[in-house]
Structures are given as C-alpha cells and as structure tokens.
C-alpha cells in the first residue's frame, strides 16, 4: 500500500518534470514568457485519450499527442511573434484560456465538463503496461530521454543561439540569424514534450477533464520552473521533487478532502510568491525573468 503510494508520487513527479523541463526550454533558455504550456499538456492528453478510445495503438496516440501540440504551438508563436515580455505572457495565457474553453464546450468531441473516462492503459504488442511499477519505468525512461536531449541541445552551438535569442535578439538578428526560426523551433519542441507529458498523464490517470488543464496546474508548473531556476535543468529536476512532495505533508495530517485541494494550491502559490519576493533566481537559476 505504502509502496503503491510512493510509485504514484514518482509517476506524477516524472510527468510534471517533463512538463517543467519543456517550459524551462521556452521561458528559461529561449526567453519566451510562454504561459500556454498547460494548454499543450491538455492537447496532448485529449488527443492521445481520444485516439486510444478509437483503438489506435498506444505508441501512435502518444506521439500524435505531442505532434498536434507542436503544430498548434507553431500557430501560437507565429501569431504572437511580435510580442515580448508580459504582453507575450498575457497572449499565451489567452491562448490557454481559449483551449480550455474549447475543451469545455466542444462537447461532441470532449464531453465537456464530464471529462473522458476509461482511457485505456498503454499496450505495445500485447505487452500490457498495467502494473504501475512498469508504468513508472516508462515515465522514467521518457523523462530521462527528454532530459538527455535537452541537456545535449543546450550545450550545443544551437543551445547558445537559443540563449542568444533570450539575451540579445537584435544582436543575433544583426549577425544574420533567423531569430523567429529559433523561437518557433524551441516552442515546437517544448510543446511536443508537453504533449507527450499530457499523454502519459491521460493514460495513467485514465480519466481527464478540462479542469486539469487550467490556471491552477499552470501555477504548479511555473512554480517548479521558477523554484528550480530559469535555464537550469538540474534545478528543475530538484524542484519537481520538492514542489510535488511538500503538499503531501497535508495528507498525513488527516484533513478532509475539501481542505486538501485548496491547501495544496495555497502551498504552491505561497511558494511561488515567496520565492519571487526573496530568492527570484530560485535554487540554481542562471538568469532573471524578463
């Protein structure tokens, strides 16, 4: 029983780690203040869940969730290419709200607020990923691959170019680099990973509804990234554990479930507000939030 609880926590940490890593690629490394990441998470979850219910093989659902999120992120970044800083933040937040209200209102497709129950567990060639410990291994493998890809990416010349977009976009443009291309590539990769995280979430919980993909979970991911520090992958990993585990203390203090939910969100929001006030660079941040 206790170990099942630990495994559940580790799976959730793994999924939010992927989401936070992808957000750090855009906010931390590329300097795009993107608040739409939770929408890409949701698009990945819904795409994957709906395809799986049409009996598509799991691996296609998983990848297509990422691909659709990635394609939509291109539309978003193309539309907002002239915006910066807090205006970009608000426009991407607006996009997240639009996606949320489509999930809520396109009832023929998404069943709206009722959500989608009975999402099948992933299978590959008859091998059923049902036991949670195998699912945990799947999540760890995906998170490790994504960490490795991002680690290699940011250490490469290309990673330096992304940081150039963040630090001095005009300078980079003068040097003849296509900064818009760098931006949309970073955004599309990040959205792809967020979509994969969404798919992992949907097939693990087996039930999704629009409320999971709204402001409150966005704050959770933002808190992880800011506590871990912008442009720090190690920090994000550490912060994912810290931020997801801290509210679990509430679970051991026998509280009613009506207190548990708000209590958890109060903790996230409080950590976010306090860290911005007292240690804005977080654990291992390399740059300030501009």
């Amino acid at each position, binding site marked *: 029983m206790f170990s099942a609880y630990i495994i559940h926590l580790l799976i959730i940490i793994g999924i939010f780690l992927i989401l936070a890593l992808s957000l750090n690629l855009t906010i931390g490394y590329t300097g795009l203040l993107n608040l739409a990441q939770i929408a890409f998470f949701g698009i990945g979850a819904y795409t994957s869940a709906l395809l799986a219910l049409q009996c598509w093989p799991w691996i296609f659902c998983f990848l297509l969730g990422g691909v659709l999120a990635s394609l939509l992120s291109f539309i978003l970044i193309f539309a907002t290419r002239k915006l910066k800083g807090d*205006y970009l*933040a608000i426009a991407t937040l*607006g996009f997240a*709200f639009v996606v949320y209200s489509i999930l809520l209102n396109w*009832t023929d497709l998404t069943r709206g607020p009722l959500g989608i129950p009975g999402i099948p567990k992933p299978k590959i060639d008859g091998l059923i990923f049902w036991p949670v410990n195998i699912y945990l291994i799947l999540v760890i493998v995906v998170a490790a691959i994504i960490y490795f890809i991002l680690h290699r990416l940011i250490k490469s010349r290309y990673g330096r170019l992304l940081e150039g977009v963040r630090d001095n976009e005009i300078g980079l443009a003068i040097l003849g680099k296509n900064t818009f291309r760098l931006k949309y590539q970073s955004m599309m990769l990040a959205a792809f990973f967020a979509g994969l995280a969404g798919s992992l979430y949907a097939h693990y919980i087996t039930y999704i509804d629009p409320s999971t993909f709204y402001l409150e979970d966005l704050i959770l991911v933002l808190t992880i990234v800011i506590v871990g520090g912008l442009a720090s992958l190690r920090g994000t990993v550490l912060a994912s554990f810290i931020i997801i585990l801290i509210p679990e203390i509430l679970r051991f203090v026998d509280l009613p479930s009506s207190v548990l939910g*708000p209590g958890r969100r109060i903790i996230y929001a409080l950590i976010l*507000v306090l860290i911005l*006030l007292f240690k804005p660079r977080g654990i291992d941040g390399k740059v300030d939030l501009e």
Partner: protein
Amino acid sequence: MSIFLQLLINGIIAGSIYALVAAGFSMIYATNRFIHFAHGTMVTASAYFLYWLFVMLGVNFYLASLLTIIFAGFLGWLTYVGFYKQLKKKKASNAVLLIASVGLLILMENLMLLIFGADVKSLNLLEINKGYEIGGAIITGLQIVIVVSALILLAGLFLFVRYSKLGKTMRAVADNPSLANILGINSDKIAQISFALGSAIAGFAAILIALEQNIEPVMGLNLIIKGFTGAIIGGATSLPGSILGSYLLGLAENFGIWYLPSGYKDAIAFVLLFIFLLIKPSGILGICKGVKE
C-alpha cells in the same frame, strides 16, 4: 425584435459590471504599467466581506456596503505596499510582477475557498425582484439600479480623472512616468492612491455582483479576464477606453450567443482578447504602443 432588445439589455448589464472591474484595473495599469491580475480577487474578497458583515453579523446593508468599499480600497493599498512595492524594490521586471500577481490570485482564491467553502453564497436581500417589460424584453429593478449606478460612478470617475488635480497628475504619470518624476510628482504616492481607488471601485462592483449573482470563490478569475479583456479592447491605459471596451465586450458576448451555444460566452472574451493583443495591443483608445521595446 424582442430577442434583439433582450440581448442588448443583457449586454449592457454585463458590460456595466465588466466596466467597473476594467476601470479599476485600468487606473492601476496606467499609473503602474504592470498587469495586476490579482485585481479580480479584490472583487471576490470584497463580496465575501460584504457577505460576512451583512449575512453573518447582520450589519445594516448600506453601512455594510460602505465598509466594503473602504475594505476594498484598504486591501488594494495593502497589496501594493506589502507586496508589489517590495518586488519593485528588488527591480523585478513586469514579467515577474505579472507572475507574482497570478500567484497572488490563486493564493487568495484558495484562501477564500478554505474559509467560506466551495458552495455559492447569496445575500438574499431582494426576495421578490419584479421585472419590467420594455418592448418584449425583461429587465429587473435591480438590473436598472446596477446599470444606472455603474454609469453614475463611471461618469464621476471620468470627470475626476479629466478635471481634478489628482486625476491630472495620474494621467501625467500614465502618459510619461519619467517626465512626471522629473517634474517632482511622487510616483510612489500616485501608485498607492491608484491602488486604493482602483480597488475601491472593485469593491463597488463586488456589491452589485453580490446583489445580482451568487458569490463564489472562483469568480475573481473570470471577472479579471473580462475586465482585463474590456480594458485591452478599449486601450488599457485609457479610462474611457476601458469603459467603452467593456461595454463592447458585454454586447459581443451576448450577441455572440445568438449564433453560438451559450457555453461559448467565455470563449468569445478569450478570442477577442487574443485578437486584440495580436492586432492592436494598444486598444481602440490607447495612448501608447503596447508592444514593449
């Protein structure tokens, strides 16, 4: 024809509420230049404060309303002095202030959820709310009060910002903060006043909302999205612009559901917000370019 009139009336009622939220938001935005997203919870907190005074303590309604407006102004002032000012001292960028503000919104929303519970509260002040018929459309007495009092307050606010010395100072800071500073205007003091005044207007909006609808912990987010969208449509730095934008938003939402399922009412606001941010971030009457250098 009666449907048209009914939607027009509904649009004006919704627009009046949005305009009150947007006016306070715009006043704060113009003088501070960062997005005070937590403005929505000022409304929620004030509505619960009114509920606490009027329903739980049994205070006279008019006295409770007056205290609510004072409470809202104080809460806004406290938010600035205790929170934003501390962040600004550390040279926090607008992006940090925005994210801190969203964090504050979630924090306050969940605190109220914890204190008052998730169930909706209602004042039950007007038990029988008689409707009047105008050309086939129905408007209740309370709704007339809402529209008229909102219009009077907004007009007063407009005159205040346009003609009073303090209003002119505020507009000077909004127009050119560094020039205003050189001329010896204490921008910190103006920021404090605009937070207090803007939030007091939110408190007034809270009273009208508490009368007309139910009080819920989560309503602040929805209100700030609407108020913010109204402000962006009309021009966030301009008070008349924000008011105009909010009425346009109220009408667009209500006429929109003539064609769309009513669930899409909120989506209309989001889509309008998105479109205006992309095409005309300075809004219809905005005085400065929205895209940051």
